[in-house]
């Protein structure tokens, strides 16, 4: 779909307000906002690269970016969660233009992204598949299967973004990145609010899959 309007980063809080009714948005609601914005504004090639939101919980930031980029209207946002709305509290790919996967149950996006990246590679495409997870979501064992396989398969077309707002109750001793690097991924640890740092990390390319661990404020801060 071709974007029909283009709004900027500063418009995102207002777009989120259309959904939530809240003027202010907590760290939890905006933990993914900067990474998703940088992806859509600077990294993803429209109609070519794919973005899979695995952490479907708390999708307001995602919907706001989709609206800013013209995939959704402000009216769509106002209906958020309503009986006739296309926008649920978890996205449904069959309802929302521009949404690649239906998500909500944690631990599904990375496996789907591995399959998507494999499919693109089989078709000789250089397209990137980017999947976004949360640090708590990473606790699901299904992610371990996907991390292991993607590393062995040398899936250079795959980028995982892990938003780390320290919400995994048992924590990640030694850090999240090494869960990936030990399996053959390259990794970047960045400030999840620093757009230039995010852009640099998200455009890294190599022969192996890449993980960007984006650190933001603690969930309960």
């Amino acid at each position, binding site marked *: 779909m071709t974007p029909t309007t283009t709004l900027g980063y500063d418009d995102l809080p207002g777009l989120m307000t259309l959904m939530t009714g809240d003027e202010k948005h907590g760290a939890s609601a905006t933990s993914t906002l900067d990474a998703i914005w940088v992806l859509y504004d600077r990294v993803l090639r429209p109609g070519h690269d794919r973005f899979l939101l695995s952490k479907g919980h708390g999708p307001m930031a995602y919907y706001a970016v989709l609206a800013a980029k013209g995939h959704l209207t402000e009216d769509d946002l106002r209906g958020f969660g309503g009986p006739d709305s296309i926008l649920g509290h978890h996205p*449904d*790919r*069959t309802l929302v233009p521009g949404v*690649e*996967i*239906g998500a909500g*149950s944690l*631990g*599904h996006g*990375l*496996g*789907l*992204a*591995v*399959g*998507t*990246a*494999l*499919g*693109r590679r*089989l*078709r000789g495409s250089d397209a990137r598949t980017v999947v976004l997870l949360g640090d708590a979501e990473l606790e699901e*064992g*299904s992610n371990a*299967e*996907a991390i*292991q*396989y993607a590393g062995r398969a040398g899936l250079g077309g795959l980028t995982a973004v892990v938003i780390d707002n320290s919400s995994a109750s048992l924590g990640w001793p030694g850090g999240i990145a090494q869960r990936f690097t030990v399996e053959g991924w390259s990794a970047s640890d960045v400030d999840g609010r620093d757009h230039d740092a995010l852009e640099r990390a998200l455009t890294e390319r190599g022969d192996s899959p890449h993980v960007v661990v984006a650190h933001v404020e603690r969930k309960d801060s």
Partner: protein
Amino acid sequence: MDQRERFYDLLPKLLGDDDRLVAVLAEIGAAYLNVTGIDPGPVADRVINVGIREQLLVGVAGGLALTGLRPIVHTFAPFLIERPFEQVKLDLGHQDVGAVLVSAGGSYDWPEGGETHMGPRDVALLDTLDGWTVHVPGHPDEAESLLRAAAHADGRVYVRLSADSNAHPHAGEDGRMAVLRRGSRGTVVAVGPMADRTLAATEGLDVTVLYAATVRPFDAETLRATLTEPDVVLVEPYLRDTSTPEVDRALQDVRHRVLGLGVGPSELRRYGSRADHDALRGLDEPGLRRSITSFLAESG
């Protein structure tokens, strides 16, 4: 060559004929493809073995399907349907994409392996989901034609391969039930590999015997069109009563009786051979005959 061997033999040919197809394996079948002279060769890049990772097996299939490819996903029934059930539900169903899931092992093709490798609950579990076509071939030839049809289709298809087969194929390719015998005292529906023993068990009984190699969608039309006395026996090679609600729906406007025969839900904790288990579970010829005769005798 049994149904599973036929599948392994066919798979490289299917991939060679259609570059939309991708085989996704979780170790089971991978070694077989590589060592038996049916090395996939030129289609090797479309044989993806994710190792013993069954959640990923189905997740990868969903991702491949999202790029327009058609995955053929294979392992033993409990590891294909039960262990990654949420992936089957969400990564295929909720994403609204298609795939061909091909199981081996049936309900108890390896009884010596015990409960962990028995898969009688697969079709019943898929019945809780939307939009699945389910094939239960009763002969390697049927397995091949149903696999070919599934590969060329677009939707979500489950092909349940079994070590047991009938002596000859019975199924047409249209998904309809075949009439194996006509009678007037009731109808016995035999599914997949249960056909030969059902025919033997009903020898001399005045019943219609129908044969189904495709159970979803259930062919209500043929059941109704051939119905005599509204007494229906289902002989299914998986969890008993799996299709009983289908018969009830098909005959909603007719007072009827249904007997569902199949694998009971209790864990027997017995090893032995397939024949041992058929007998233990009342699914050998004498067991079926006892159950069917007794059910028909209760009538009116």
